[in-house]
């Protein structure tokens, strides 16, 4: 028997569902997206006894089948669609032993769909500490299923789950709650209208506001005409259903679940007293932020330098070792520097995701949401906006996706719109190189001036995000019912394996996602810079010789003149010249113009672009920084990168919306081109104005 068993892993957030998934599949997993939406789809393969294999789908965490977010919709859409290729043969509901009552609510809903459902009671290692004892046979009898008691922390119980998956055919599919008891009259009507359908499923189709693309269309159409009950009457029925489910659960737990609260320790209470304290809570949060930034901008400097040097010498080696020609040039000047521009971000991204993963795993992140909510609300944001704003310092793409758990649409929209102002790691290389060029490396009040400038730019990004949130909050006239519920999970030590997998997965998806664009752009740029309209471009040597005339010029200087003539006449040179009038008032020349334009695909290509342009322009191997320092502004005759143009560039990059991937994600998350278009126009227009004013004042 080689058929795979389809297993769906379902559970409330914070139940260790992902740990169970990791334990079952090991590294045998794949992360992708559900078609058309940005909800993460995690699946893996698990080897079972007797040579059977199971395909495990880790569904997004949900509190119930009453979906209130995109992630939760995925769960109900799958479970109601028997034709989906992922429709489970067996469902596993993961429950937290400390929160069994609430977790069982979801269990009873899944079970009532008629899907064989295994109950996994996780975090069994915490039972003793909380004084909990379970009577498994009694629970199994009342819940009409099999139970695995698991501790992923100790690796216990995983084999039991595998065994139960193998034997899923023997599980009962009897429901826990008779749906028609919710409102006998109403359900009688439903039964008569759709005699061939399961009542509980019909009820879910009626009450859920989700997209049932693959469900029987006729059914959906008829249902909408059948839904004679008003919205509020339906809601009352949902409340009644919930109360009935809890009555059933309370009855079951009374017999099979005992808590001796005298042995319970007050660990949570003691930690909460400090971590959510009016003063200490904020002080500790601020300290943690400091450590995170220290790691991202200081500790990651060492691996980044190493990566930088490695790629530089690799490029050099390619150039000297391979036979000269277009292909070698493409490799050494286009592809290798392009790849280097991606790989260099790995340390920072990894550090950031490491900290976020730890803060989430320990349960601390919810405390931050709790502490910050009131303050953030003043600016039209939510406490839950803190996570996206922090993630935004690595990359706006996961940050925009992280807004999904903000229930209030207006708060969520504002968070999405302002997140790209936070200083993402793609801006960092631009900042670093410009700061090194125009800000003196001296100490002011014991602080390094360059470091201070960098910090200022970060504060500027945050400040602008918060300020525009405040403005948007005043302008946007969106009435959305505000509600805010955040679970405060128990404190736990993070599991190394979970943290490691998160870091690897997130970093990988960043590198491959952004990497493709950066690589493509470096190749295109290289091509545009080393080719031109044949007429003038091909005759470069001749033209230069004509202008030089009879003067006696050293060979080296002559070849440099030829290169720079070639660059000016290349496709990219022509493009740069065309936009020069627009960017001249900001203090940029056409080469910077090219870099700025290519940055609209992704900011991090700025340095790479200049590297490509300059290394095409010169045969000598110089570091890009020295090359930039030597650039002269043809109008003033002074250094091109001076304080005025440098500050103007820094401000432009701080505010402009230069990231296609972010725009694409915003379009997906807001479901309209309107918002990304507003972002692009508003942010970039503002950036232009600020950069203009700064240059004209400082020049």
């Amino acid at each position: 028997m080689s058929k795979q068993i389809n297993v769906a892993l379902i559970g409330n957030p914070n139940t260790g569902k992902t740990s169970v998934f990791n334990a079952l599949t090991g590294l045998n997993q794949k992360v992708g997206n559900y078609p058309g939406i940005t909800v993460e789809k995690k699946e893996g393969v698990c080897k079972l006894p007797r040579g059977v294999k199971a395909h495990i789908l880790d569904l997004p965490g949900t509190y119930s089948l009453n979906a209130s977010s995109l992630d939760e919709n995925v769960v109900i859409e799958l479970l109601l669609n028997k034709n989906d290729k992922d429709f489970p043969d067996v469902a596993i509901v993961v429950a937290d032993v400390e929160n069994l009552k609430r977790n069982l609510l979801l269990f009873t809903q899944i079970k009532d769909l008629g899907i064989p459902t295994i109950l996994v009671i996780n975090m069994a290692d915490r039972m003793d500490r909380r004084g909990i004892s379970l009577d498994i046979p009694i629970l199994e009898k009342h819940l009409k299923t099999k139970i695995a008691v698991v501790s992923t922390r100790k690796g216990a119980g995983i084999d039991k789950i595998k065994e139960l998956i193998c034997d899923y055919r023997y599980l009962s599919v009897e429901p826990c709650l008779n749906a028609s008891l919710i409102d006998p009259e109403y359900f009688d009507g439903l039964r008569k209208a759709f005699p061939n359908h399961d009542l509980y499923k019909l009820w879910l189709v009626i009450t859920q506001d989700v997209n049932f693309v693959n469900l029987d269309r006729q059914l959906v159409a008829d249902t909408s005409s059948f839904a004679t009950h008003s919205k509020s009457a339906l809601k009352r029925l949902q409340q009644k259903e919930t109360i009935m489910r809890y009555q059933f659960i309370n009855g079951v737990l009374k017999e099979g679940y005992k808590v001796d609260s005298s042995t319970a320790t007050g660990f949570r209470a003691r930690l909460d007293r400090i971590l959510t304290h009016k003063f200490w809570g904020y002080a500790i949060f601020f300290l943690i932020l400091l450590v995170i930034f220290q790691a991202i901008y200081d500790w990651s400097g060492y691996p980044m330098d190493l990566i930088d040097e490695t790629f530089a010498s690799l490029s050099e080696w390619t150039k000297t070792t391979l036979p000269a020609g277009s292909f070698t040039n493409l490799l050494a000047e286009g592809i290798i520097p392009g790849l280097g521009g991606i790989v260099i971000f790995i340390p920072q991204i990894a550090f950031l995701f490491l900290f976020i993963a730890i803060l989430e795993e320990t349960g601390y992140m919810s405390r931050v949401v709790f502490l910050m909510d009131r303050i953030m609300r003043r600016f039209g944001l939510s406490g839950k906006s803190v996570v996206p704003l922090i993630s935004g310092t690595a990359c706006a793409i996961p940050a925009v996706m992280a807004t999904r758990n903000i229930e209030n649409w207006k708060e969520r929209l504002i968070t999405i719109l302002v997140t790209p102002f936070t200083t993402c790691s793609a801006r960092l290389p631009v900042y670093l190189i410009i700061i090194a060029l125009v800000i003196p490396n001296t100490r002011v009040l014991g602080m390094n001036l360059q470091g201070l400038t960098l910090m200022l730019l970060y504060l500027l990004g945050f400040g602008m995000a918060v300020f525009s949130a405040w403005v948007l909050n005043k302008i946007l006239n969106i009435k959305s019912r505000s509600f805010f519920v955040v679970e405060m999970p128990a404190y736990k030590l993070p599991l190394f394996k979970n943290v490691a997998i998160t870091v690897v997965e997130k970093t990988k998806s960043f590198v491959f996602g952004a990497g493709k664009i950066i690589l493509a752009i470096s190749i295109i740029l290289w091509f545009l810079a080393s080719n031109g309209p044949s007429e003038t471009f091909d005759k470069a040597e001749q033209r230069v010789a004509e202008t030089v005339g009879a003067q006696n010029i050293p060979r080296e200087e002559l070849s440099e003149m030829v290169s720079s003539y070639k660059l000016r006449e290349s496709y990219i040179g022509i493009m740069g010249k065309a936009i020069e009038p627009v960017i001249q008032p900001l203090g940029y020349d056409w080469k910077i113009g090219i870099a700025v334009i290519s940055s609209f695909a992704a900011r991090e290509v700025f340095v790479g672009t200049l590297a490509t342009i300059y290394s095409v322009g010169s045969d000598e191997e110089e570091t890009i920084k020295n090359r930039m320092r030597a650039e002269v502004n043809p109008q003033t005759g002074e250094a091109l990168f001076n304080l005025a143009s440098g500050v103007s560039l820094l401000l432009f990059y701080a505010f402009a919306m230069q990231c296609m991937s972010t725009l694409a994600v915003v379009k997906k998350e807001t479901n309209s081109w309107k918002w990304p278009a507003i972002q692009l126009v508003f942010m970039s227009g503002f950036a232009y104005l600020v950069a203009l004013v700064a240059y004209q004042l400082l020049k």
Partner: protein
Amino acid sequence: MKYTIADLRRGQRAIIKSVNADTLPIKLLEMGCLPGNEVELIQFAPFQDPMYLNINGSYLAIRRETAFQIEIHPIEQKTGL
């Protein structure tokens, strides 16, 4: 006088009397915020908002505006309430 969760003091417990099903999110009901269940106020953020509660064994935080919509019977009478 009508008491709601917003009237609770830190460490005080109460029984939920009624909830406004029309305005409260179903998610909150499903987390155990239902008539007859016990609620305890664990902690306030500054300005007493949001409120960190233990409802029926679930630990969660809600905003003050939501807390006003959940009526309670106080069970531990302390001075003033």
